[in-house]
């Protein structure tokens, strides 16, 4: 009784469809954000998709509490500005990173202080860092401090947020060529510092 076997093993709570291509029917961020203008609850989906990336980018540069605060503020600002997001854009991550970078600017001094500490050869909360590693960290921190604000932000968006040139351009609102030249300059300075 093939029929019975098929039917009786059918799990009522689970349709077990096999034809759904889960990877292709994810709605783009642009469409979700567009629809969230009429139905704000949909914006939660954007939070779910991107809050970890934003938090991770910030938590690597600031302490955890500050990273939490800036991440929440980033999404709150994005929620307020969702009506201006281009629905043609598939990925909201660059936009969100741009907001996060702007908000984090207010805490620049704190980041500088941490870099200065590292540049002086000390590492917060650690006493067992080998000498060579310490020298390398110190050189890198010194190099990062020597960069202009714009160059350092571009470099960190590339290295820590994994954004492409085009995405960084979208995040900070400059042409892609400008991103390329900023990144080349910053990479060269850091490279020279750690190879010395």
């Amino acid at each position, binding site marked *: *009784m093939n*029929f*019975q*076997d*098929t*039917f*009786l*093993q*059918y799990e*009522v*709570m*689970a*349709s*077990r*469809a*096999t*034809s*759904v291509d*889960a990877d292709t*029917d*994810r*709605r783009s961020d642009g469409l979700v954000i567009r*629809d969230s203008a009429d*139905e*704000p*609850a*949909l914006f*939660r*989906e954007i*939070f*779910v998709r991107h*809050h*970890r990336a934003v*938090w*991770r980018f910030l*938590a*690597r*540069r600031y302490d*955890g509490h500050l990273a*939490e605060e800036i*991440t*929440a*503020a980033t999404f*709150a600002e994005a*929620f*307020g500005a969702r009506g201006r997001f281009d629905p043609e854009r598939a990925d909201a991550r660059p936009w969100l990173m741009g907001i996060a970078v702007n908000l984090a600017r207010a805490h620049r001094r704190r980041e500088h202080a941490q870099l200065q500490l*590292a540049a002086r050869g000390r590492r917060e909360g650690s006493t067992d860092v080998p000498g060579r590693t310490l020298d*390398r*960290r110190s050189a*890198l*921190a010194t190099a*990062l401090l020597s960069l202009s604000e714009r160059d350092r932000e571009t*470099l*960190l968006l590339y*290295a*820590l947020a994994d954004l492409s040139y085009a995405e960084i351009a979208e995040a900070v609102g400059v042409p892609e060529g400008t991103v390329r030249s900023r990144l080349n300059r910053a*990479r060269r300075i*850091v*490279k020279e510092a*750690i190879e010395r």
Partner: protein
Amino acid sequence: MNEIEAIRSFYGEGAEAPSDRIWRDFERRTAGVRPRRLRPRVAVAIALVAAVAGVLAFLPTSRHSHVGPLAPKNAAAATVLRRAATKIAGLPDLGPGQFLYSSGTRTVISSVTPPGGKPRSVWRHEHEALWVSLDGTFRDQWTSDRSTPPTTETSDSPRAFAQSFGMTLAEMRALPSDPATLTTRLHEIDERLKAATPATDPTRDDPFRVAISVLIGPSRPAVKAALLDALAKLPGVRRLPDENIDGERVFAIAARFRASLTKPPLAFDHVLLLDPTTGQLRGARYVSVGSFGDLPPGTTTSQWEWQQAIVSKLGERPSK
């Protein structure tokens, strides 16, 4: 190590994002315009609709043509479905970092053929527990009294979720909360499922099939409410006498469907059991209208009971 790797190493990896706390902070910052503010308005709107519908249902039929064509039992079904819709709209939505825990027991008739003997029907009991989060993490624990060791499957694959619920998580979360638009969208999904269901499986003609996925899955409460509202308008849905699960009263709603492609053609009543205090789906069963194999008409061929809760950790079970 190049300069980019050196920078990554310098800044470290960072810990796990405290999603719950960030979301609560986000909600606090957007208080007054935040998504949840919508819910009470929806709930009030649904309550008003339900109240009006409830009053109309008890007026002479000539005064309210929208329920007039339905049999008296159908009008009663519409009333309780709308009442359940009102309740479910007020439930909290699943938040980031949280898990929707669902667990249930299922009893199904299975056909067994002993060596050299004739096929006979036996009952099989199963228990299943699911944890689903909004980031796509999905765990499915399943045990059966007729099978080998319990299986546990944990996956963050969108495919695993889709295979269980008949639609992707993103699709489920994006379902509209307007009953008419929702009906159209669910019909599209149902057509897709039909294409993937063997003709010998009568559930392909079941009008409640997709509805069950939406009711027990991590869809938004407003969507669940809209679905119950839409079911209230489904022709042929009728109310059965109230039942009990674990000593608690539940509403019973049924829809009859014919499995047109099976040989011989079969008919079933699909019964849904709804919690009157929360509007949540607590159980369901298939009842064969005619003879089913060696079983007489009216046999329940499968039934299950279900409970749901929001928990904060993968694998956590509610205390109750």
